[in-house]
């Protein structure tokens, strides 16, 4: 048995990864809130929270800086932000984060403007798939370096992109390795000798394929970028080190549906390959299966419903359907435990209420942070 608090002990960075639509954002927020209630200074970075969750946290507007969540928001909801605890939250705006990063790394104003004004950069920096992942890790790095927080909880884009997320620092470093770029910027003289024959052909071909203008724009773009290369490189290396650090942990969040389960297993494999630290599995929206499965007769139920036999039949049919879900979920859980290698995952039952307000957050938090006998108890109360 290992509860969430034990799993997160001593961690500075908690990354919640997993498929879309499994409640990852709510999980991230509830974890952050729970840690703050236990006296930590926590920042939760969300990518795309439900509007009402953002409202609940008081981060309605996009901001590229964390904002303190007023402790009073939780007053009367059974959560007290602990002694020394602080909850901060932010919603990541990839485009803005990217721009700020460029501004921060550029050696001077001219270099900064060259990049920010470059058509390629403008056209593509907001639409880039992958910019979310890259800016998320860049932001994570900055927040970690700021020393302002004990723990940072990061919600990630959906799982396939979470792979991009793992690769982002590497891809960037690879691309910005400099060598290729310098060749690109100076495709003659010594550089051409270094790569040997073929460079000229590559350039000719690229020109043919992409059109001269794009080439010019690209070379201006890369030329301008060269000024921020060292900063990028250092950052990418720092991010990579941070993700692989012992103080970082990845929680894989999933629901029992088939696709998210497969994604979770897939992602776990990727974590292994990348030697990234795995902190455990969170299974949301599970229908727990009751330990006893004595049949429920329509007569018994009718007795409780003032003798309405027709209604009782519908009720029993509904229970049967829920038991189908519960059995399906039990099977998914077995598979998850085995494939992901967590024999005691954190389980949050399917909650019928709205989990996007403070009360919902508190409820999710209760399930996530349950320890010892309470874990069993909460699940059996929700069992079918």
């Amino acid at each position: 048995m290992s509860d969430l608090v034990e799993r997160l002990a001593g961690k500075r960075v908690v990354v919640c990864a997993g498929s879309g639509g499994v409640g990852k954002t709510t999980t991230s927020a509830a974890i952050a809130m729970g840690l703050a209630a236990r006296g930590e200074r926590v920042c939760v970075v969300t990518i795309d929270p439900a509007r009402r969750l953002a409202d609940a946290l008081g981060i309605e507007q996009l901001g590229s800086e964390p904002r303190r969540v007023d402790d009073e928001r939780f007053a009367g909801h059974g959560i007290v932000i602990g002694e020394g605890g602080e909850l901060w939250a932010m919603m990541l705006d990839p485009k803005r984060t990217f721009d700020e990063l460029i501004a921060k790394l550029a050696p001077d104003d001219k270099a900064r403007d060259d990049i920010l004004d470059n058509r390629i950069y403008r056209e593509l920096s907001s639409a880039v798939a992958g910019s979310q992942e890259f800016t998320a890790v860049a932001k994570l790095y900055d927040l970690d370096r700021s020393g302002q927080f004990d723990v940072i909880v990061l919600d990630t884009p959906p799982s396939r992109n979470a792979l991009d997320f793992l690769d982002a620092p590497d891809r960037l470093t690879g691309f910005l390795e400099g060598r290729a770029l310098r060749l690109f910027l100076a495709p003659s003289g010594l550089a051409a000798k270094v790569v040997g024959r073929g460079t000229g052909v590559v350039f000719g071909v690229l020109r043919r394929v992409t059109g001269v203008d794009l080439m010019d724009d690209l070379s201006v773009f890369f030329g301008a970028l060269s000024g921020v290369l060292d900063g990028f490189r250092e950052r990418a290396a720092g991010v990579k080190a941070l993700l692989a650090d012992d103080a970082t942990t990845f929680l894989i969040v999933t629901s029992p549906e088939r696709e998210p389960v497969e994604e979770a297993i897939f992602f776990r494999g990727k974590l292994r390959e990348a030697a990234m630290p795995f902190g455990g599995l969170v299974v949301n929206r599970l229908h727990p299966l009751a330990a006893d499965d004595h049949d429920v007769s329509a007569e018994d139920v009718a007795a409780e419903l003032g003798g309405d036999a027709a209604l009782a039949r519908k009720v029993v049919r509904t229970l049967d359907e829920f038991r189908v879900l519960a059995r399906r979920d039990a099977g998914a859980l077995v598979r998850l435990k085995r494939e992901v290698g967590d024999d005691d995952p954190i389980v949050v039952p399917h909650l019928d209420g709205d989990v996007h307000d403070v009360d919902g957050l508190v409820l999710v938090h209760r399930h996530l942070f349950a320890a010892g006998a309470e874990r069993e108890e909460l699940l059996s109360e929700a069992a079918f």
Partner: protein
Amino acid sequence: MQALLDKPLLVVTGKGGVGKSTVAAALGMAAAARGRRTIVAEVAARDDISRALAGAEGAVPTFVERDLGEGLHHISIDPESALEEYVKDQLPRGVSDLLASSRLFAYLVAATPGLRELLTVGKVWELAQPDRRTPGAHPYDLVILDAPATGHGVAVLTAPGTFATAARMGPVARQGGKIHQMLADPEQTAIVAVATAEEMPVNETLTLRAALRDELGQDFAAAVVNGVLPARFRGAEAAALETAAASRSGVGVGGARAVRAARAEVARAKAHRAQVARLRRGLGRGIEVRTLPYLFEHDGLAADELARLGEELVR
């Protein structure tokens, strides 16, 4: 929704986990059943569709047009293969081999934002052409793109236009322009949004629509809400359930559990109805919103189940 099957390209979009692949496959089966030579194209090697349709286990080769029988085909598109094909197609053999082995070229491609999306959608476009570029390939009557999860779905649809604008000239711009024209033309491309009856997927669908209108000038042809629970209990019955739950008089464990399940069903069905209504309001009258029932016995997707869903959609 039957008219959707008459256009050469059908794009199925939506947030991850809403059953987008299910809808794409179901529509594919409905189209094939009507004699349209159809291919379902999915992006990245997830291959849920072919697993469902063909019961294929294990790794399926990417970038291969596979005949699933009965006029239905499937392909899984990855950008790397798309690039390789594009380069081979555009350039003489020796040069393309050289490029394939050029790290510089690989870097540049990886570093050019949006190029992956462009290549992916470029292949989809190629599949939809009456005269196929791919040697020995047959044309299709209908290509169904199972688009990546919403955020990237927009990127895939808008990348060609973005490139056409950025490049201005040269083959990439020309091709980007052509692809963009097809995607932006409601006569040639129908976009179907898929959501579940939950807050976030509905929000995403509305956001996606705004983005498509802004960046592509296209609107949804229709929307599908997946996994909607039927309204099984009437108001009075729901009230009786509440009373039973509140009284807890001599209730057996099983009986209490049954009542709890029924109350959960009432709450969920009500929430589902509210979300479907919200989507309908958000999209306005011009866009048909169809609902598909929640499947309890849902262990992967059997082909006959998909066919049934497909028929339900195009009814």
